[in-house]
């Protein structure tokens, strides 16, 4: 791949392998994702999605292969990543606003009495302004999910990694999430989203199907559907088609 083309890449993964003890979780992953796009990785539970995300964020060290985020190795780029883990990862005894301010202050190294103006904006986006003084332990699961997303967004990162961000959300909020994700790409932000639902997959610009630690298909939702050779086939049909042929 030419140097110019590499400048437009948000993520490059090359021959990545990873094992937990003797269990091979990721087996030769290769990926190139352009900047300003939404990339979705689909797979059943245990397929290796979360491990791949932890390697990209630097929470795990790769054993074989290389990863570059925004053109830099993980060790240099991990602070440019906004990460929303599958677990909510929130301070239960603190209020919604205090959680958001804390992660914002930690990122920017701000004085404890200052926080970025972005905090209110992000709270408004996730529709939690009314609950900003509420302790996290009193929130519903869906609200915690929204706060967790707000924390990933508050530092305006260029590359967002969201591990199953729409799980447990009602259809209305899920739809507003996707509208916002698409808006983010207009400002050249790149999104890496894991999911196991085909509804989420249809919103992505590019998709990869992950099975037993291997990518069994890569392309746009349209390309993957067309690969089945059948008219009107769904992404679910496409997934089953690739599973059967691999």
């Amino acid at each position, binding site marked *: 791949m030419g140097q110019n083309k590499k400048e437009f890449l948000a993520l490059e993964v090359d021959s990545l392998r990873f094992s937990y003890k003797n269990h091979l979780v990721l087996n030769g992953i290769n990926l190139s994702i352009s900047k300003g796009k939404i990339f979705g990785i689909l797979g059943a539970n245990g397929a290796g999605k979360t491990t791949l995300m932890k390697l990209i964020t630097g*929470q795990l060290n790769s054993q074989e292969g290389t990863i570059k985020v925004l053109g830099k190795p993980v060790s240099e780029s991990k602070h440019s990543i906004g990460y929303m883990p599958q677990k909510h990862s929130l301070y239960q005894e603190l209020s919604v606003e205090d959680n958001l301010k*804390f992660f914002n202050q930690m990122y920017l190294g701000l004085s404890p009495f200052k926080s970025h103006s972005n905090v209110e904006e992000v709270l408004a986006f996730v529709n939690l302004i009314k609950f900003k003084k509420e302790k996290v332990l009193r929130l519903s699961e869906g609200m915690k999910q929204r706060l967790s997303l707000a924390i990933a967004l508050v530092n305006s990162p260029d590359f967002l990694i969201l591990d199953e961000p729409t799980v447990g959300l009602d259809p209305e909020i899920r739809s507003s999430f996707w509208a916002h994700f698409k808006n983010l790409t207009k400002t050249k932000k790149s999104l890496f989203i894991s999911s196991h639902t085909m509804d989420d997959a249809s919103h992505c610009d590019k998709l990869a199907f992950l099975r037993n630690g291997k990518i069994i298909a890569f392309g746009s939702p349209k390309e993957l559907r067309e690969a089945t050779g059948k008219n009107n086939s769904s992404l679910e049909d496409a997934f089953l088609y690739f599973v059967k042929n691999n």
Partner: protein
Amino acid sequence: MKSINRTICISLRVIRQITNDPRSTALIIIAPLIVTSLIGFSFIGQKEILNKITPALLGVIVFFFSFLVAGVSFLRERIEGTLERLLLLPVKKVNVITGYLFGFLVLTTIQTLIVLTYIIFMFDQGYNNISQVFVILMLVTITSVSLGIFVSTFARNEFQIIQFIPLIILPQIFLSGIFIPVGEMPQVLQLISEILPLKHTVFSLSQIMLHGKNLNNILPQLFALLGFASVCLAAGMATIKNRS
């Protein structure tokens, strides 16, 4: 400056988390007052015994509660994934551990002030060099908070932190000289007590509060406490990222 800000933010967050949780606040403030009252009223006519018990009581209270609350708080950070999330930001392990230490130093200072004031006024007691007591208790807090962080690596839930109490706290209480003077114990136990921070804490506090000594007179104990604090701090720091 940014690094200092991060440490201060973590300290304030630790304090806010604990004060926002009524059970933790009760554990830190009300439980020591109940224990102190029970002991105080039991020896109400025996001022001398109460006098002797107070330094030991202070040391045990600070060690026990900061170990327990820091261990549980840090375990929650690991279990709930906030530590992982925090370490993805430009936050260093040293910010996390010093943030915890400063937060707990504030809490244990308040705890000590309340307990001491209560004993002095409620039971009409008088002690020497109160300000130097805080230097000793600062070293105890560093030791116990770091030990709590270290132990949280080996626990999977809060109940397992409690299971460390008979292993880490109780032997120290028995061998610290509170019940039987260390000099009257068998040789082996005397040797074991030398490597336990609470023995040096109780001895130092007694010397300062009861015998009018100052920090210069207890330098060996002070260095021993400094050594325990350094070792526990290094162990806490080394294991901070494990088992997140």
